[in-house]
């Protein structure tokens, strides 16, 4: 039987790993899109990132709910509660817009040529919105 404290530590480690992959990968893909000519190289990086992004986001949602369990049985209300609501709404918006972004990459894979401006904007928006989610997470964890 795994001790409870070790299980919580593992869940938090997975959460931080998910954040690193999602934010770091988006920033890297944004940088590659900015610096390289539009072509198969930037599309290959975007494709790898899309697979990793959904693995990371799925892990973040799973472990995020697990982290909330540390506050049970009664979650704080007031300002903390409002911040959590804002974070959940932002995550829902990122999920929806990321589904569109992934489908755009799938369409680009069909013709092997991404649109440089759309690629840059898509991954810039992903990076910045994920950084905003991290900031809200910091507020929830440390006030």
């Amino acid at each position: 039987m795994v001790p409870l404290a070790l299980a919580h530590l593992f869940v938090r480690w997975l959460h931080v790993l998910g954040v690193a992959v999602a934010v770091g990968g988006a920033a890297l893909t944004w940088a590659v899109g900015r610096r390289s000519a539009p072509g198969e190289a930037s599309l290959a990086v975007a494709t790898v990132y899309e697979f990793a992004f959904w693995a990371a986001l799925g892990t973040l949602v799973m472990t995020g709910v697990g982290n909330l369990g540390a506050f049970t049985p009664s979650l704080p209300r007031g300002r903390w509660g409002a911040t959590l609501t804002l974070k959940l709404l932002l995550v829902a918006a990122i999920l929806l817009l990321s589904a569109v972004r992934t489908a755009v990459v799938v369409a680009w894979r069909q013709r092997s040529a991404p649109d440089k401006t759309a690629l840059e904007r898509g991954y810039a928006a992903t990076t910045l919105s994920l950084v905003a989610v991290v900031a809200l997470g910091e507020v929830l964890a440390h006030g």
Partner: protein
Amino acid sequence: MADAGDAGAATADATTTDPTAVPASDPLLAWGLASFHVAVLVVVPVAILHRVGALGSLLHGVGTGVGLALYLLLWGVTWATNRRWLTEADFSAPRPTVAAGGKWGAVAGLAFFYGLLVAIASATGDLTFVAIFALLGTAFSPLVGALIGVGFATLDLLVVDAARRVAAE
């Protein structure tokens, strides 16, 4: 309703003639949409439960290990059924695509319910309760799954349409 072969051929035809098409057979699309569905299925109810003040007590009743296992089960079931749905999907024909979403949603609902049943049976050990829960769940979980499947198939069609517009720019 067109069968899977016809739908697949139609999709293939669409992708060869339209450079902005989103091919349903792409494994990235199956992985992305499945992960999107599972995350939405968790984030939206968590937000609603939090707003009504019921989240804390619910989370308190679900252990970390059980919660992670159920999430991974839902993720796996959704990925497998999404792949099957996408082999039948034709994004230029919304009605049969949404109907197929309902069918595979029902399969996902039933599969997830049986996983949930195993978790509940191992936690309670009350065979009478488990038997009644199994009967009710077997009847209702495909219906719930079908409704969710129809909803997500409709949402996915909107996502793919938006992606086509971006890819066309």
